[in-house]
């Protein structure tokens, strides 16, 4: 008989962003427990992590265990002792031949254990192993750790409770409804679980909550924001959107500021008018079913008004002192204790932008770039640093490339984000990031494992992305001037970028980077060529031959040098290969590949490189080495992984 299984871990409110990961972890742990099942489904709300599986056997299959006894030639006394220990008569023992001879053996029948018992033993441990980025203890110092206190557990196999205890909570068949709309205790069965929750205002499925929000938004033109939607889906058990409005006079404030207040501080969707402009409206998502008297709407409108008033106050206060007049104040803002103030950083950046080919505007942008750190608005909304500087620079009459460069200076903030929109901004962002990387590596602030307090990985990734996508033909390795740790750190980011972001195969990236990666624009072009070449039928065989060539050269400890001595070349495949090389040398590999490949194949087929005559051998090695070098300008093809 197969049984359905339900596990609900009832907790206090779990941080929304940790929930999907926790479910994934729970799923893996369940699979690892090797309890047979047909299907499994995971769901969660802020207050519960739920695993449901179908098709569990009532018991595990029976099995046999073979216990080896004494040798067949052992005295009867020993055989009797063994039999007694197994609880059988000696004539009930079987025999078995082993490499060491005939032995007595006892075949023990092990009845399959009840699945319920296995679950009862393993669930507490499984639950405590769920991975969370941060955890707490709540039942005393040596108590269990979890993301938030566990308050109830439902564990049912078929109609029966799987009994266990965790942190003083006994598993049972009582779930809990919505904190305010449902009952605190609701009896459930595996079959009616989801429906019972719904009766008590808990929508178990995240997808359903997502759809409820989207559906009830209809008619309101909200600015799409999938990340915010996810947050709201996992912060509610019964989400219901409501719209509110704010005084249109606040629209005088920059849209960036208004949206940040709504999005980050209040978790509201912003709303656009028919022309796509920000409208004086917002949508909040409640965790209850309705707001018939408008209390929730009014409350949220008041909070937003207060926040906008604050923002306006800061905006107006900040205007009293121009960015340019704030430069000296940067002397009091520390960039990093060992690396000095932001004034010093700005001065370094002003030099660096010039080295990177920036003009007077890039220098101006670098000079003003960090001044917004001294403004009230940035102190209040730190996530708007850069953006606020750009907005102030615009109001204060800086040229467009300058204010845009300041605005975009922290771009790209992720691999999906775009690079700064203009050249001045790209140069300044490069200078900023390179300065941070060089400085931090110089004073030993090097990221280790998951610890990266200065976000150096992101900075390095930004450098790579800007260089490639901004088509900067700059020698990256010269820019970091011999810092080996930084060099290998950047090398890793270059590899990551071309593999994970751009989708090149790992061996293509290895092959292309093996012949150099300082100029990333050139590297990108070579990678594109390898990708194209790969579709040629001659490519893989040639790559295999190159690998063979490299192995031969390595085995022969060939150190290069020397010219090919034509007189030593034998007629036939060797001469053919040499002639072909002479014809196609200097041509791009794309043209040469189809002509070269058959000659190389034939050479390896017919010619013995390790000729007995040392001079001939040396000449052949020289020929191979010359070929390899000639056609390894684009990539080291021997690094290509071939099927042959």
């Amino acid at each position: 008989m197969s049984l359905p299984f339900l596990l609900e871990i009832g907790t206090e409110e779990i941080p929304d962003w940790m929930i999907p990961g926790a479910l994934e972890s729970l799923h893996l742990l369940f699979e690892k427990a090797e309890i047979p099942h047909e299907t499994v489904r995971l769901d969660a709300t802020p207050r519960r992590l739920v695993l449901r599986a179908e098709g569990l056997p009532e018991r595990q299959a029976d099995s046999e265990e073979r216990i080896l006894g004494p040798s067949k030639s052992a005295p009867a006394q020993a055989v009797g002792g063994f039999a007694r220990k197994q609880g059988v008569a000696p004539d009930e023992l079987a025999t078995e031949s082993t490499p060491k001879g005939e032995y007595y053996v006892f075949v023990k029948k092990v009845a399959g254990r009840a699945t319920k018992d296995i679950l009862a033993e393993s669930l507490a441990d499984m639950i405590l192993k769920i991975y969370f980025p941060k955890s707490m203890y709540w039942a005393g110092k040596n108590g269990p750790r979890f993301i938030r206190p566990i308050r109830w557990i439902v564990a049912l196999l078929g109609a029966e409770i799987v009994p266990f205890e965790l942190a003083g909570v006994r598993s049972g068949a009582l779930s809990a409804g919505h904190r305010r709309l449902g009952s605190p205790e609701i009896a459930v069965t595996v079959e009616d679980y989801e429906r019972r929750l719904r009766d008590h205002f808990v929508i178990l499925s995240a997808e359903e909550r997502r759809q409820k929000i989207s559906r009830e938004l209809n008619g309101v033109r909200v600015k799409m924001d999938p990340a915010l939607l996810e947050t709201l889906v996992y912060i509610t058990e019964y989400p219901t959107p409501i719209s509110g409005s704010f005084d249109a006079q606040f629209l005088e404030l920059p849209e960036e500021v208004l949206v940040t207040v709504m999005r980050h501080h209040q978790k509201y969707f912003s709303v656009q008018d028919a022309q796509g402009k920000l409208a004086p409206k917002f949508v909040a998502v409640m965790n209850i079913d309705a707001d018939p008297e408008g209390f929730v709407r009014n409350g949220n409108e008041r909070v937003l008004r207060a926040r906008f008033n604050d923002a306006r106050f800061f905006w107006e206060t900040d205007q009293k002192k121009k960015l340019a007049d704030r430069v000296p104040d940067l002397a009091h803002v520390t960039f990093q204790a060992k690396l000095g103030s932001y004034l010093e950083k700005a001065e370094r950046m002003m030099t660096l932008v010039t080295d990177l080919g920036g003009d007077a505007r890039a220098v101006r942008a670098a000079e003003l770039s960090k001044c917004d750190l001294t403004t009230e608005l940035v102190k209040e909304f730190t996530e708007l640093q850069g953006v606020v500087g750009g907005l102030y620079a615009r109001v204060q009459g800086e040229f467009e490339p300058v204010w845009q460069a300041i605005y975009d200076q922290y771009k790209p903030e992720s691999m999906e984000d775009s690079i700064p929109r203009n050249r001045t901004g790209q140069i300044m962002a490069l200078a900023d990031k390179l300065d941070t990387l060089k400085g931090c590596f110089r004073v030993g602030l090097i990221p280790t494992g998951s610890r990266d307090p200065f976000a150096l990985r992101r900075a390095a990734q930004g450098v790579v992305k800007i260089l490639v996508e901004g088509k900067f033909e700059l020698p990256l390795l010269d820019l970091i001037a011999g810092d080996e740790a930084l060099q290998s750190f950047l090398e890793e980011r270059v590899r990551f970028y071309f593999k994970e972001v751009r989708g090149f195969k790992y061996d293509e990236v290895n092959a292309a980077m093996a012949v150099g990666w300082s100029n990333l624009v050139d590297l990108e072009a070579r990678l594109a060529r390898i990708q194209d070449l790969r579709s040629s039928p001659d490519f893989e065989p040639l790559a295999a031959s190159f690998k063979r060539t490299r192995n031969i050269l390595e085995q022969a400890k060939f150190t290069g040098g020397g010219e090919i001595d034509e007189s030593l070349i034998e007629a036939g495949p060797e001469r053919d290969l040499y002639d072909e090389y002479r014809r196609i040398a200097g041509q791009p590999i794309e043209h040469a590949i189809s002509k070269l490949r058959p000659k190389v194949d034939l050479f390896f087929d017919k010619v013995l490189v390790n000729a007995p005559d040392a001079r001939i051998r040396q000449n052949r090695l020289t020929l191979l080495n010359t070929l390899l070098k000639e056609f390894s300008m684009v990539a080291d093809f021997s690094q290509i992984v071939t099927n042959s």
Partner: protein
Amino acid sequence: MSSFQEIIFKLKRYWADRGCIIQEPYDVEVGAGTMCPETFLRVLGPQSYRVAYVQPSRRPADGRYGDNPNRLFKHSQLQVILKPSPDDVIEQYLGSLEAIGIDLRKHDLKFEEDNWESPTLGAWGIGWQVMLDGLEITQFTYFQQCGGIDLDLVPAELTYGLERIAAFLEVRDSVYDIEWTKGFSYRDVRYLDELQYSVYNFEMADIATLWKLFELHEAEAARLLQAYDPKSPEKKRFPILPAYDQVLKCSNIFNTLDSRGAISVTERVGVIQRVRKIAVGVAHAWLDQQQPVLTAETAEVAQ
């Protein structure tokens, strides 16, 4: 409609009914109710404890001369410590909101992740900010560590922002319009505090004097901690509590210097470390002081 003081009375009554000692505010300046000895010291060690008190909390940098409708130099926190935290702590908390007249069926309540940390106290916890119709009304924390010490029993700390809750209940756009009691607004009672302390903290506090005071209080705390002898049979008499007052003085002076713009970001970390050092020292000494003196004899018995 509930006046400011009515809300306080109701909350105190509510928590008194649930076994809390009702304390009056601590009489040394603090930045938060957490810093009072009733929280900072009582959460240490294996003794159960329940306490509630209103604590005027001073944040010099948050002063706005009484001009900003939502920002205060000195706001009032209702601080509740339930040690150990009961299993139904959230239900009890929700009950307190109902007790002051918030019909939770008609309002939107969310628990949003917000982990609290105080580097100066060597304290941190896990918890939420509680949002009511988009307004943060309470910080809810399960303490994990205090004075750098892992806690034996995990207390729940509830910190209610009383001005915000009153403004919410009375539907006021400005905290200054809250009715403190009939005939007196919040402005009548507190405006001058806000104005004068803003002037002092931002304009007139003498930086050299404050540094001198900071060093004096720091030295006094250090002197006492140095003198504490865990082996003394008289250790119960030792003035750890007064030593802690010196820590609080340092913390408040640090905040004032900060609002005066007298501490650079580089210095900041160092000064926080200095306060933390004496705070941690007090926590360890306090914990030790609660234990019986370990003499040679008792040590043997204990083995």
